[in-house]
């Protein structure tokens, strides 16, 4: 197991390096010039040239890449072209909001979806199944921003139960923190509820038709014990897989959700940086995202061993 984890961690570094090269080339070969944006609409070409020189953007691409890699090897993501703030510091400032949003979203989605999927499988073909799967289809079809706007209108403007936007750190109080995360978590989580619920239902249906489930029922196991103890554990691998995929997909979902609900997280940081061609930020954030993606996949693989003792690495 230890050797397996070490191998996977090494491959994580390789993936991050490849992503880094790809992103660097993609950004620097795409049209756009931060110097022109900084200089403003009224700037002369000479002024823009001088800014480009100051930023080192007139150096050959190979030199710029070597500089960036050298910084990375020293644990330095560089500084923002615009604010001149260290990229690492910007990521550190934005990470808590994104972590809070993704963790509440995935918790909400997993708990609700697994429960709904189990119930739908238990009552397969019945009214409850159809209603739950109908909601699942709806959750999957409606875009995050539409759900977001509807929630804002109903819960924040009409009922005035929750704030429209913003983020308060946990240090600002439990309710202020939670109240700012409820609507975004629901908006972002609905698609994942739908996805996880459908996979849970399908996986549960397969397990419920197995002989050992009939045996459990014959031995007098209660419905709850049968569903959640015997069946769910055996249906767990595909569910954990899809939750893992969901965590990875959340990375793209947070970009929209953070914008709609004005949450100062990594998604907003990325969008703003792309608009301004703030290369060091984009590169830094994407390297972090790619590392997270690979590590989540590793965690999912390790969780398999807890669910299914037959799986060993």
């Amino acid at each position: 197991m230890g050797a397996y984890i070490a191998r996977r961690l090494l491959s994580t570094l390789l993936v991050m390096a490849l992503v880094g090269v790809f992103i660097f080339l993609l950004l620097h070969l795409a049209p756009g010039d931060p110097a022109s944006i900084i200089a403003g609409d009224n700037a002369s070409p000479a002024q823009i040239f001088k800014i480009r020189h100051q930023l080192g953007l007139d150096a050959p691409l190979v030199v710029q890449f070597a500089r960036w890699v050298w910084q990375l090897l020293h644990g330095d993501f560089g500084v923002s072209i615009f604010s001149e703030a260290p990229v690492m510091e910007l990521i550190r400032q934005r990470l808590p909001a994104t972590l809070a949003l993704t963790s509440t979203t995935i918790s909400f989605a997993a708990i609700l979806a697994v429960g709904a999927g189990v119930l739908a499988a238990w009552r397969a073909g019945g009214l409850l199944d159809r209603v739950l799967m109908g909601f699942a289809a709806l959750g999957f079809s409606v875009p995050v921003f539409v759900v977001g706007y509807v929630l804002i209108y109903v819960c924040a403007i009409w009922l005035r139960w929750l704030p429209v936007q913003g983020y308060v750190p946990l240090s600002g109080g439990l309710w202020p923190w939670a109240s700012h995360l409820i609507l975004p978590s629901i908006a972002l989580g609905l698609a994942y509820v739908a996805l996880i619920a459908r996979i849970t239902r399908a996986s549960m249906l397969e397990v419920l038709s197995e002989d050992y489930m009939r045996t459990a029922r014959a031995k007098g196991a209660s419905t709850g014990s049968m569903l959640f103890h015997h069946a769910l554990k055996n249906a767990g691998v595909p569910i954990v897989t899809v939750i893992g995929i969901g965590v990875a997909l959340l990375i793209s979902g947070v970009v929209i959700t953070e914008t709609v609900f004005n949450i100062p997280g990594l998604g907003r940081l990325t969008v703003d940086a792309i608009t301004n061609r703030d290369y060091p930020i984009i590169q830094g954030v994407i390297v972090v995202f790619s590392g997270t993606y690979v590590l989540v996949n590793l965690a999912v693989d390790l969780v398999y061993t807890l669910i299914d003792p037959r799986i060993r690495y």
Partner: protein
Amino acid sequence: MGISRRGVIGSGLAAGVFAPMVRRANAAPGDAGTLRTVMQGDLRVFDPIWTTANITAYYGAMVYDTLFAIDEHFKPQPQMVDKWSLSDDKKTYTFALRDGLGWQDNTPVTAADCVASVRRWAARDGGGQVMMQFVKDISAGDDKTFKIELTEPFGPVIDMLAKPTTPDCFMMRKKDAETDPFQQVSARIGSGPFTFNESETRPGSQYVFNRWDKYVPRKEPPSGLAGGKVVSLPKVIWENIADEQTALAALQSGEIDFYELPPIDLLPQLAADPNITLEALNKTGNVGIARLNCLHPPFASVEARQAMLYLLNQSDFMKATFGNPKYYQTCASYFGCGTPMQTDVNTDWFKHGVDLAKAKELFTKAGYSGEPVVVLQATNIAFMNNSAQLIAGQLEKIGVKAQLAASDWGGVVTRRSVMEPDDKGGWDVFITWGSAYAFSDPIGLLALAMNGKKAWYGWPTDDAYEKLRMEWAGAADDAARKAIGDKMAALGWNDVPAVILGQWVSPQAWRKNVSGFIGIPEIIPFWNVKKT
């Protein structure tokens, strides 16, 4: 698993008990007097000389002060300056600073600070660079007086020091102002009416300003950016809400008090809200233009450029983006409408209206031979996106092959600097806009220069026009400037370096319990504003 009556009643009671608690918990935070605003964009740069971003100029107007400032009639008035004089030969300006000026680190403002600040500003500002061609020396006398000595008379010195267009001539401490003009100043200490609260600021999220209680305002009532900057608000917070719909919802729910640029399509919703005031603070608004590349065919030919005047109907462009005529106007003035330089000289093309046959004839005279006309289309900005498509459509109507080059604005700003022909990454038309006020300043606005490859993108050349532009700079008074401006407009509409697409205002929205906003182009001042 069924739903019981008891359950429904229990849920209802729980909702009845908890909902008011939730509402109370979500009521506006206990910061009475704090003004929460959503401005036009994120404040990424804190040096208002280093960048021309308007949001940074807003920040500058909070934290820094200026030697002069324009009043509501666009006339420069002393601000940090107490008295000033001009020598008889009109070559030496002498300035005396007023009493009570101090930096927010509790050191006094000195003439040496101002000398360094003017020099740094002039290195970055287009108009400042022109001014420096006439400057022999800028020097401090004692702690409160300094001089600008010229080699020959240059009329708009005071106008330049007062101008609200970016970069504004903000005063900084000498040690900050001595920073290379192409490097950012890292200190955030000025002598303006607000201090920047770094500890409460969350970059990318909110920017916090506190009233600076030691600021000594002028005694005169506020007028434009001039007069007394009396601050009532103890704190101003700029929230960075990128999503327009969310910002609007936040305004309607009372989470924010002021929204600088509500989207034009949502204005009816705000107008119908009894708690919201909707008003354009910048009455002259913005001028949209299609800039033409004078270096390569077809627009290297003046006939092809003149053809564009007969091809494009301003109303179409304004309707496509702004919809409601309440917010836009057509305008043929070379220097914008509602500005001190407004003129209708040489605008027969405008009075004549769209004439496709004439446009086609002019393109033929220009020797147009079917080459594609590349129109840069910034798809992420509605006005630019819509206008590019309209221009392409009109060109196609007269048989000119239009080619839209779609990218975001970042892509456009890069490509427009390419002087090569289209097949080597160049361009023929791009769309942009500027404040109408800026369009009335032929020295400050590079887009109004026609000095060939030294000019702004499009690189038009007209030596006679350039001679007039320098004469304008040296003109003694407004009447002389206006007369020279008329001659420039006459030449300008013959040369057609750009086509005007219309002029519009962008209303601001604020809650009814807020009052006292000062209407002026380029800056949103927060002094004089009250919240009850």
